[in-house]
């Protein structure tokens, strides 16, 4: 739509290579267990696997039957079992049970575990303790990076957030370093790395060591700059309700691995359908980054154009008709399908949000961000907690906003204590006792208000904000707030470092860095192009709204951003990862 686009933005590198690498390695690993075998796949590896290979690929390499790992006794009759899993204790325990059950039956099989993206000593130790080390061979499938779209690459490790930020376990730090290393060796060499956060620092170190260990090959860089950021530098942004189309779809329907399941409500039929959401979907591609309010106009215009295109047929003779059918019809049909889906989705989202008093929720969130009418906000929050018209995620969202320091400043004391205990009480019997712990982990001292002023995150409220012609990244939150994470990136790129941001970094607990590689000898022209491609790695997840904001920034500055994230997140996922409500 009506954005000022700088034409000179460089082309994005081709990430399909990453898929091919992963597929080839998987095939190699499967061949390490020759002969027919049944394959058990960890549930959350199925979708990523689907994106890079299909059943035919697996069958060609002697995979007989496919099963999902369900932590139940197995029914396979195959004499070779292969397990494709995440390095999780729970799953390895289950495999130990399977193998030991076979042993008890006197049944002989061969077993292979393929850990993705890497194995952990704790898992191997369990195999040893359970007496099956040696009966089971293990391998690593270094499937670190899954390209979800032209500019989004995911590690598909949602547990990264909880493991690192809540449990303090650094098991994925090297994984992040290795992912970076892979990108560096295929699309690098990088010339500049900026970052903020403890984990970013460690991931950078790990990557650097891996670069030193390996051999260097001189090649032309496609990606010049890297920005690493810890999720806990900015926990406010992912907790905000999303109003950009793609973010809203994710909040409501949950996009999983680039794919969404639209319920019958949306499809106006009796069954749900799964739809890939990426730049290949022409309709989606034009609305994904738009504020929801702009989407209707676009869709109705499209619908009118489509109507006109179809209407052309009425005056045609046979020959024209033939050309029409062979050349245009297919495209039109495709577009029609896409259009009716996104209209259906918009309609369904409107209905859901109207029911939820979304308007009021947004108003409250924005006031909180502005530090405005705090008392009213708290009363609103209380009422909604009381009414339980919101899902558990919202209830906790607010409690966390408070924990993050959004409410504390002006309202110390009683109200909040009351609220906290109330939240505690409400969720008490639904969630586990660890909730308190989770909260306190999140409750690091935040200087959000001061940061907001310093970085101009909250535009002045007396100015009008025209969402049709966004003037800054605040449009992704209706003009109310520029995401802190993206603002930092903008500032650092502009200043080519952290100079002048000392106060900001101090408020963010420091751990910022900016390093430049020694000269790589690549010629200047290439360098300028690759310099304008920036890889941003979110450690602990990022939201679609942030991706939209970066795309906006890229268009404004003639840059291209590639987002690498440990997983796509949103407020619900973030909070669910903090819950401990199962045994």
């Amino acid at each position, binding site marked *: 739509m009506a954005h000022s686009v700088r034409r000179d933005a460089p082309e994005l590198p081709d990430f399909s290579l990453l898929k091919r690498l992963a597929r080839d390695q998987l095939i190699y690993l499967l061949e390490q267990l020759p002969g027919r075998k049944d394959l058990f796949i960890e549930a959350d590896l199925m979708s990523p696997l689907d994106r890079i290979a*299909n059943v035919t690929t697996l069958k060609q390499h002697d995979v007989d039957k496919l099963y999902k790992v369900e932590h139940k006794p197995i*029914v396979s009759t195959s004499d070779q079992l292969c397990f494709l899993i995440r390095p999780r204790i729970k799953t390895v325990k289950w495999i130990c049970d399977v193998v030991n059950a076979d042993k008890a039956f006197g049944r002989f099989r061969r077993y292979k575990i393929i850990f993705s993206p890497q194995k952990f*000593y704790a898992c191997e130790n369990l195999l040893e303790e359970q007496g099956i080390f040696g009966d089971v061979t293990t391998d690593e499938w270094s499937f670190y990076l899954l390209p979800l779209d032209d500019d989004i690459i995911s590690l598909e490790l949602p547990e990264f957030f909880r493991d690192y930020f809540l449990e303090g376990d650094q098991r994925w730090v*090297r994984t992040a370093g290795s992912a970076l290393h892979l990108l560096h060796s295929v699309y690098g060499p990088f010339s500049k790395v900026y970052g903020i956060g403890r984990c970013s620092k460690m991931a950078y170190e790990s990557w650097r060591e891996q670069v030193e260990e390996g051999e260097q090959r001189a090649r032309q860089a496609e990606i010049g700059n890297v920005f690493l950021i810890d999720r806990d530098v900015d926990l406010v942004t992912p907790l905000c309700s999303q109003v950009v189309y793609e973010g809203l779809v994710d909040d409501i329907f949950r996009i999983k691995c680039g794919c969404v399941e639209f319920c019958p409500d949306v499809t106006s039929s009796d069954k749900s359908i799964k739809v890939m959401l990426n730049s290949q979907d022409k309709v989606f591609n034009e609305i994904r980054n738009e*504020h929801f309010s702009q989407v209707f106009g676009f869709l109705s215009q499209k619908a009118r154009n489509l109507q006109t295109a179809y209407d052309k047929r009425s005056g045609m003779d046979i020959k024209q008709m033939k050309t029409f059918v062979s050349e245009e019809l297919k495209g039109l049909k495709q577009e029609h399908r896409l259009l009716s889906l996104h209209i259906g989705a918009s309609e369904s989202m409107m209905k859901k949000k*109207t029911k939820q008093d979304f308007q009021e929720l947004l108003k409250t969130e924005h006031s909180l961000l502005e530090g405005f009418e705090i008392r009213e906000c708290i009363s609103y929050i209380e009422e909604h907690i009381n*009414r339980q018209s919101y899902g558990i995620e919202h209830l906790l969202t607010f409690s966390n906003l408070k924990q993050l320091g959004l409410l504390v400043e002006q309202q110390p004391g009683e109200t909040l204590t009351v609220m906290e205990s*109330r939240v505690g009480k409400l969720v*008490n019997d639904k969630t586990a006792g660890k909730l308190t712990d989770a909260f306190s982990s999140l409750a690091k001292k935040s200087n959000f208000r001061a940061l907001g002023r310093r970085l101009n995150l909250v535009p002045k409220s007396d100015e009008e904000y025209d969402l049709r012609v966004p003037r800054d990244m605040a449009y992704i939150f209706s003009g109310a707030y520029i995401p802190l994470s993206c603002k930092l990136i903008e500032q650092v790129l502009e200043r080519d470092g952290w100079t002048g941001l000392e106060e900001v970094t101090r408020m963010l607990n420091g751990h910022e860095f900016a390093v430049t590689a020694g000269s790589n000898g690549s010629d200047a022209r290439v360098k300028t192009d690759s310099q304008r491609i920036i890889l941003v790695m979110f450690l602990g997840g990022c939201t679609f709204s942030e991706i939209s904001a970066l795309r906006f920034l890229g268009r404004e500055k003639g840059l291209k951003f590639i987002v690498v994230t440990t997983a796509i997140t949103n407020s619900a996922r973030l909070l669910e990862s903090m819950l401990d409500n199962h045994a």
Partner: protein
Amino acid sequence: MMIRGKPDEDDYWNSSKFKAFTFDDEDDDFTRLKESKRAVNSIRSLVEEEDEEDDVEKVSWSGEPVGSISWSVKETESSIRSTGEVRDQSFPKIHTAPSLPKNSSGYSLSSLFKGKAKTGSFQSFSESFGDPSIRNYAPELRKPKSEYKDYVSDWTPEETVKRMQQGKVYSLEKFRSLQDKLLLLDEAVNAHDGNVITAVLIYLKKSLSKEILFRELITREIALRHYIHYLKEIGEQKLLVELFKSMDRTEDMALMQYRDHLNVRDENKKRDFLKNCLSFPFSPDDATHVQDHYTLLERQIIIEANDKQVESSGQADIFKKYPRKASILNMPIITTLYYSCFYHYGESDGTFSSPANIRKTFRISDKQFLLTCLGARAKLKAWFDVDALFTTKNWLGYTKKRSPIGFHRIVDILQKNNAPVQVLQDYVNLVEDVEQKISLAQKYKCHDVIINTYRDLKDRQQLIVYRGKVERGSSEYRKIEEILSNSQLRWKN
């Protein structure tokens, strides 16, 4: 999005910088969306008649095209189900005699592939597939000799950690003195690799007494957190409790033990478990929660037993009219209160199931109580009860309606429960802010409220405008006519 200046916008939208974007049903955008949908749908029939070779497209549409892995896994599942291969089996006990394979001759070709029916008999054959024991170690043997030093003990802690990170052969046995062990641990921590830190901790767990290990971990926060996480994951609850205890982290210990209630299914056992938890050293806040949790479950068990019986005996109308959808066991406190307001309204304060008793026991605030109760009574369309919730008498005996929550909220809640206009308008009238009152009245079509308000404001112009909006000849139309023709009124415009 344009400012439309509709009178029923929240004043927020008028006063703030955000252009009026609203999710309200009546909004123009929504209508526009509906129109687009109609247009697109009208094309549908036309498209479908030409849809013969569409299967190919359908495939590309789905996230799981035929032949995808997820699809295939589902196929396996359904085929298993249809052949009835799955019995609800748990893991077999070791002592049970193994059932023989269906084809039990032991000599058929297929049985060879299924594995050995009896121990030993086909050993050589199965091993001819490629000796698994050799295969296991083969990758190590292939490594160049240069990587081995004569004595593994030559590796420093730093080298060892590096080798572990790279997945190379390593040995921890030589780290025997406490000092060496701790050096190794610190080196792992310095390498920022959680995987290696845990690996070293596993070795220390095996080779140090827990007292010593715990003591050393106190000063090593990062290693400690890895250790706690590891113990959690492998389920070594007991050791974890000991660890917390030795570190005087009694609150963590209490929470850790409390968490175990999630593993208790049976409600009576869970109640007993929680009762037992009461004596744990929780922080004061947590202690209150746990006490409440226990009291709540105890009470739910009593209510559940009673109501189940009453419901099945068909004694009470309320259960016949509104059968219970689920048991009340393990529901949150607000749900329990709602349930109580729904099924046990008007019971005397003394009964466990009465709303008043629950309110008192769990110290539920006025607001919270009102909102929950209002929801329940409105659902039952008990408008009289709703009315009574707000009615207070002063010392002179006059009644007045009061609410701890703004009446505009009350109106919203009532409207969501399909309250009739007669009920709604009473509460719309109680909204103090005039603009808000009119906007709500317009939203919910409470004509009387609007007309009376304009009359009271002496706003003739608005009244004339409103006359144009109501149906000609209707009772509200006549009412407006009547007021406008009243010569007694002094209009301000």
